[in-house]
């Protein structure tokens, strides 16, 4: 049994004697005796490390790791430089708590300050927080930032990731606020419908670009509609795409949010991930979560601290707009190391390869009869029809170690390519499809 205790029997005896009790259970004298469990928990017996390792390996072995992946839909397989894992495994980063004691936490604080700067660079926004749970909760928190007593409705385009929409709806339901959705037209937000939906009670408009179907949205048009209604624009963005695409700031967004997983986080069956949130200076005081700022100590040395804390739950209690107290610091660290390692040119190159390979894949699939469904430009995902039984197609691909695109409700397929997909892989898959069907 692994217990990780550090007190041996002899020490335990000394400690109990000092406290004047004969057993540790004597220390539980405030607990009503009839509440104390009178039988062992219904759990397995403790295991030695070797056995635990075996069990976990067996469980992991029951999952299927695909050699080739053409699926995204909110979680993306990108190359992760080896140094990312190495830095994130450094014990001090791993085992530190939130950096409340700034003097001994400069390392964590500086790494977050650097992360915030990188997110500002990617999105073009002026201020970033230290991160939240994931992209979906980031969008939900952003919606809450925009609401006030008079403006409560948030308009969300139906082209956003359905997981994100679902979470936004949950948060809105909880706080008695409304989410109104606007339909898609040819795979992008129907701007006419958005225009007619926006009104005096609109707090914000949320549009994702590239959207769930991979299409690049007209964020500038969405910003104009939002602002004309006196509302904010929240842009949901993909961080790798952001290396080349027009920034949300350039498009007029007030808040940019997104899922940071593509920045050096493994797929991990969906978590832990990283929600990034950035906004204009004007909205800075409404930004939830931790924020690190630069200041100085008495001697004038640069020093980093958690700042603007009076916004937060531990001070405002029931008046705080969010109850969040953690950030995903270790995930943010991974993202920062990833961005620094890949560097200015490396991320740009990764983004360019995503676009190139996705367009190559789209062309090849069209040759095999998988016609693209929407006409607008896309980044690294796109939707096609499926001329064959989708289950059959996915099975054939799976049998050949390929995780195909995601089958959508209407029977179409949402494909994704990244820099990880080689030309050879794409060619192999498409010839396989041609061969079998």
């Amino acid at each position: 049994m692994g217990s990780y205790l550090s007190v041996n029997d002899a020490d335990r005896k000394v400690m109990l004697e000092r406290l004047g009790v004969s057993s540790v259970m004597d220390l539980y004298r405030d607990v009503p005796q009839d509440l104390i469990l009178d039988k062992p928990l219904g759990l397995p017996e403790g295991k030695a490390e070797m056995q635990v390792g075996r069990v976990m390996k067996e469980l992991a072995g029951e999952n299927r790791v695909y050699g080739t992946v053409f699926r995204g839909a909110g979680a993306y397989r990108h190359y992760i430089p080896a140094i990312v894992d190495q830095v994130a495994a450094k014990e001090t980063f791993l085992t530190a708590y939130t950096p409340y004691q700034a003097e001994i936490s400069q390392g964590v604080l500086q790494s977050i300050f650097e992360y915030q700067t990188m997110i500002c660079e990617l999105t073009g926004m002026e201020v970033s927080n230290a991160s939240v749970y994931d992209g979906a909760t980031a969008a939900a928190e952003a919606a809450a930032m925009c609401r006030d007593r008079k403006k409560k409705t948030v308009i969300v385009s139906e082209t956003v990731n359905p997981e994100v929409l679902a979470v936004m709806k949950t948060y809105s339901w909880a706080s008695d606020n409304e989410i109104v959705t606007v339909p898609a037209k040819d795979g992008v937000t129907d701007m006419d419908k958005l225009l007619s939906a926006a009104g005096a009670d609109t707090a914000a408009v949320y549009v994702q670009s590239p959207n769930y179907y991979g299409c690049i949205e007209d964020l500038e048009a969405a910003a104009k509609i939002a602002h004309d209604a006196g509302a904010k624009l929240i842009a949901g963005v993909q961080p790798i795409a952001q290396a080349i695409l027009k920034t949300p700031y350039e498009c007029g967004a007030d808040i940019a949010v997104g899922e940071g997983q593509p920045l050096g986080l493994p797929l991990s069956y969906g978590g832990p991930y990283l929600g990034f949130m950035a906004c204009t200076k004007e909205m800075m005081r409404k930004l939830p979560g931790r924020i690190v700022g630069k200041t100085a100590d008495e001697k004038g040395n640069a020093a980093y601290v958690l700042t603007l804390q009076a916004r937060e739950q531990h001070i405002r209690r029931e008046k705080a707009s969010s109850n969040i107290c953690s950030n995903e610091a270790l995930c943010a660290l991974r993202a920062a190391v990833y961005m620094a390692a890949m560097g200015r040119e490396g991320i740009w190159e990764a983004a360019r390869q995503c676009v190139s390979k996705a367009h190559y894949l789209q062309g090849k699939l069209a040759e095999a009869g998988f016609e693209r469904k929407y006409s607008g430009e896309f980044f690294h995902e796109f939707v096609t029809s499926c001329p064959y039984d989708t289950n059959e197609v996915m099975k054939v691909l799976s049998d050949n170690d390929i995780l195909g695109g995601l089958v959508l409700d209407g029977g179409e397929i949402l494909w994704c390519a990244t820099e990880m997909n080689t030309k050879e892989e794409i060619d192999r898959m498409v010839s396989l499809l041609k061969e079998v069907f």
Partner: protein
Amino acid sequence: MKLIFEKSRPGTGNQYIPACDTAVYELDASFLREQEAALPEISENDLSRHYSELERRAYGVNNGFYPLGSCTMKYNPKINEAAAALEGFADIHPLQPEDTVRGCRKVLELTEKYLCEITGMDAMTLAPAAGAHGEFTGMMLIRKYHEMRGDSKRNKVIVPDSSHGTNPATGTMNGMQVVSIPSTEDGYVDLEKLREAVNDETAGLMLTNPNTLGLFDKNICEITKIVHEAGGLCYYDGANMNPIMGIVRPGDMGFDCIHLNLHKTFSTPHGGGGPGAGAVGCKEFLAGYLPYDNEITENSCGKVRSFHGSFLVIVKALAYILSLGKEGIPESASMAVLNANYFKALLSEKYTMANEGFCMHEFVMTLEKEQKEYGFSALDIAKGLLDNGIHPPTMYFPLIVHEALMAEPTETESRQTLEEAARIFLDVYDEAMRDPQSMQQKPEKTVVGRPDEVLAARKPVLRWQEEEAEDEV
């Protein structure tokens, strides 16, 4: 220490991905950003050293004693990390077909089952990403319960004034009015005040037990009964679950719904502030309202996070539960209590305790007298500890104790560590008594002194900018 941007030099950096092997596709210029993102350009050697230097300027459980009350900074076993790094967990897409993720599903099912057993609950979700996120989820279940019964009047949540700040903030996020009730002098729920506070508008009570003073509320069954009789439900904030796991169960105390912080009680690392995971458990009658995972269920409160929660964190918690097993879990709990009481006894030599007698996993000291009579504060003691290689206890919490320091040593510390730490605590106290003025200069041995927090908040500098660097030159 320089920022990574200040170490950046154009044209440096390693190549991580090969040249594009397909035709290059150029997006129309109208889609493209005007300027490239100014990310660093740095060689891998310099990058590696940068983060090694940052690591040296941080402090984790691996560096030394970390008695941060309410945070349960226990040792984080290495096998947990090894398990989470397995390719069969790390490289799984969240939207893979069910028959290719059986191992992941088993991890979730086993963890849910074990946590139900430990807490006395009937159902569990692992979707929430943190403790506060779990509170949000749990209180939604309570809200949903009243709503489904058509009892729309119940929108008040009762929270003791000694509670964690997340509790009232959670009530607000759930559209509820927060009713704060005062605690007794010992930090217990004041039964009379509770009886006065409950009525037909009470949605529920949020409570942590042991409470934030580290005391087990012996009236707990009476408390949950009062709330239930008024038609409300009882929510258990599991932040302080560590000393009672395997010994007493919230489900047996009368709680209907709970959250657990897997990063506290179940040894997954805190990671400098996250990622954590907050499991939410409930009794059978609330189970239908739990967040859904893949398939939408009719009465579910909805989705609280994308996909299936902080999966790799859950893997780590499962590895820990398997290691400890049915004997190890209560043993760890009781050792957390023994260590806390031993440490309390050692510190009682000089420090004034907010409560006499035995505590659970943590205890609170008050420097109120010292602050008034000698002019040094809880903050000064904390900063003095920093110079001696100890992470200070939680400061100024709970709010009901003035000049509070809240210490939680956890079960994974040795008697020798506790004695050594106690000696340092007592030395720092003596030093402060001798020369209270000097304490305001502490810490002196750390890489920076006390930062100017007023400046940071009045004139926020939240990112690096090139101009600024030039100014400094």
